[in-house]
């Protein structure tokens, strides 16, 4: 009697856990980081409704007011509400952080994938350029770019600042992408794609890049923290965002430093906002890496 193979019913198959739930269960610290990031996102998107005051409006009558009922985090030397400036500052931090890390990582991934895929002279040339770029301290490279390019604002964002922050990210991502690509190009499906006559562009875009998404996502989140910190540093040095735009780094810089003794809240709260954001992105990035990297799963 012939035996008919039957497909087991869906109920009989072992249940695949919801990935989000799995992440929550396995990486509680990552979830904590994600919640803080979401809080910042809410602040950035809903700043208009959350901030009690116009962040740029000068009110000398409230100059250097202590934190209290009227001004939760106090006011600065111009009488501007520090809480409102921090809430609006989340826009600058997230916009610059997300855009620059995404641009930097995407360009780095493309460059790294091409380097690993083509190998030979192309790989050698790209890697030497990467070596040169890596030899500069991040802040120095960003400062040079800002100083040379100046400002180019559109949609309320300084695109040259984003370029300056993205640039130091490119070589780091390129290195990671190259090493991932080297292991992928050795796999049979790449040989199959080549044998089928697919173009280099198609192989890179359709077969290699989708397979390096995991390290890409990890790097993007990790670099967001670095980008936020770099934006704050550049603004602190007077090279990033300019007054009166609310930005955390800027709130710590310039004449603000003159008031740290009489009005410590002027630097404490923006400092805490930067620290918390960097902490949250690092926490989330590390958890994402632990969760996505099969080698670390055990």
């Amino acid at each position, binding site marked *: 009697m012939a035996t008919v193979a039957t497909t087991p019913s869906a109920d009989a198959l072992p249940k695949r856990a919801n990935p989000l739930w799995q992440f929550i269960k396995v990486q509680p610290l990552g979830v904590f980081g994600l919640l803080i990031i979401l809080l910042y996102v809410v602040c950035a998107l809903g700043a208009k409704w959350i901030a009690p005051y116009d962040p*740029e*409006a*000068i009110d*000398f009558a409230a*100059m250097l007011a202590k934190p209290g009922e009227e001004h939760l985090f106090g006011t600065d*030397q*111009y*009488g501007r509400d520090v809480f409102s400036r921090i809430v609006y500052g989340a826009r600058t931090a997230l916009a610059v952080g997300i855009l620059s890390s995404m641009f930097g990582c995407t360009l780095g991934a493309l460059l790294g994938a091409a380097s690993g895929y083509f190998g030979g002279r192309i790989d050698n040339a790209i890697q030497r350029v990467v070596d040169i770029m890596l030899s500069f301290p991040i802040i120095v490279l960003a400062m040079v770019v800002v*100083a040379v390019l*100046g*400002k180019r*604002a559109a949609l309320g964002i300084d695109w040259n600042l984003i370029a300056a922050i993205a640039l130091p990210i490119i070589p780091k991502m390129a290195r990671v992408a190259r090493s991932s690509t080297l292991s992928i190009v050795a796999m049979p499906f790449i040989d199959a794609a080549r044998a089928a006559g697919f173009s280099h562009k198609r192989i890179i875009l359709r077969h290699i890049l989708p397979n390096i998404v995991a390290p890409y996502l990890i790097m993007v989140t990790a670099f967001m923290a670095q980008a936020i910190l770099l934006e704050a540093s550049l603004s602190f040095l*007077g*090279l990033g965002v*300019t*007054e*009166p*735009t609310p930005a955390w780094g800027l709130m710590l*810089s*310039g*004449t603000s*430093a*003159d*008031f740290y*003794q*009489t009005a410590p809240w002027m630097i404490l709260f923006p400092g805490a906002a930067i620290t918390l954001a960097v902490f949250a992105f690092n926490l989330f990035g590390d958890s994402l890496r632990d969760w996505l990297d099969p080698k670390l799963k055990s």
Partner: protein
Amino acid sequence: MLRTVLRTVIASTAALLVGAGIAGAQTPKKGGTLNFGVVAEPPNYDCHGSTTFALVHPIAPHYSLLVKFDGKEYPKVIPDLAESWTVSPDRMTYTFKIRTGVKFHDGSPLTSEDIKATYDRIINPPQGVVSIRKAYYADLVVEAPDPTTVVFKLKNPMAGVLEALASPFNCVYSAAKLKENPRYPETQIMGSGPFAFVQHVKGSTWEGKRFDGYFRKGQPYLDGYKIFFVKSGGVVPGILGGQFDAEFRGRNPSEKAQLLEKMKDKLTVHEGTWVNNLMLVFNTTRKPFDDVKVRQALSMAIDRWGGSDALSKISILKFVGGVMRPGYSMSLPEAELVKLPGYSKNINKSREEAKKILEQAGLKDLKFKLLNRNIPEPYTPAGVYSIDQWRRIGVTVEHEQLETKLYQERVAKGDFDVAVEFQADFMDDPTAQFSKFLTKKLSPSGYSGHTDTKIDEMYTKQRQTMDVAERTKIVREMERYALTQAYNVPILWWQRIIMYNKKIKGWYMTPSHYLWQDLSTVWLDQ
């Protein structure tokens, strides 16, 4: 809070009174080294090619001038190398009698030839020599008929000749050395001032020692001086930590509060007006800033009187004034100033009028960029305040802060809408103060790009008017005209706050940070 303010006021007043009293009564003591901070370093050592205090503060003690401003009674001009002078009845010839027995630091005698060679270098600089103010002295011809006489003949009538000759940048050089190499002052220091040069450790220190052959017998009192080049933020920690005892350019109110709190009665504080202001320059080659009504409306939105009090607590911006320093003999009296656009004390009415003007010009939602230096004090507060004031009449302004070099390139090219520019010189003379209000034809710093020759004509006329009362009349008329045309409009004038350890005596504050820095009268009470 009130207690802190009261304490600060009492301490500051006491320090002022006590400082002034003791300085006036005590006999100077000899000896000691004066240590002070300077927040910038000179690019080279040539006074004639410089405009910066970074050169004056280290170098002024090494050189003598023909005449100089009196630190105690500014703007009085007193003799330095000149013993006396006479002016011809037509005021076209100034004859100076030069002191005898004056020596350069190398022991060579200083004569009228050295003064002639110095002024010839300023007026007609040889190839490769930079003389920043040569146009200022273009109407002068210098003669040295004998070793103790120098004669300045004017090609055209010129007011304020003595004040112009008292420039702290007109260091007297050795004619013999200039003959060998006209550019020697760029790299070597050899003057006849109270202190001889010892060393300059770049990025770190500058030292001078007493010149025993100085022509004023008994002076200088100090054995020497040592300068520490520090960042601006390092001045207060430097004084508190005892690394140095003074900084003579000027500090801000917050730094004053910090030092007073820690040093209390060990600190001497001087406060007063400063011959510096920040102004808005409208680029009249760009629309809509070619329209006088628009420029006036933008000036009218700024509450100078209201902002003065608050800004003076957080920055060095303080005094409301026109083109001339408030309080100077030729400046417009307040009663006249308040009648001009932008100076009304009724800011609400002024802003309503400004809004109407912009509406009528079809510029209800005017947007532009404000170009500024990225220097925190006082440029950033000036930019932030102006932008806030313009928001109140519905004008949106983007603040573009650049490195000084990039800023200067953009301003010189005329690549800006509105710029925040400074006016600073070593004296109040209108010939200096109006230089940025003129057409580019007459002044390279006429950044607004206007072609209004009426202001140039008035400028030339005042420059050539010798009678003080008549000149004052022209200057005031010119000031009224300039502020009404509003090519450039001052925001606020600066306050000068100088603080130093109480043991320093014999230093007097003038409204200019370029003056009275030869340290010949300074002594240490220790």
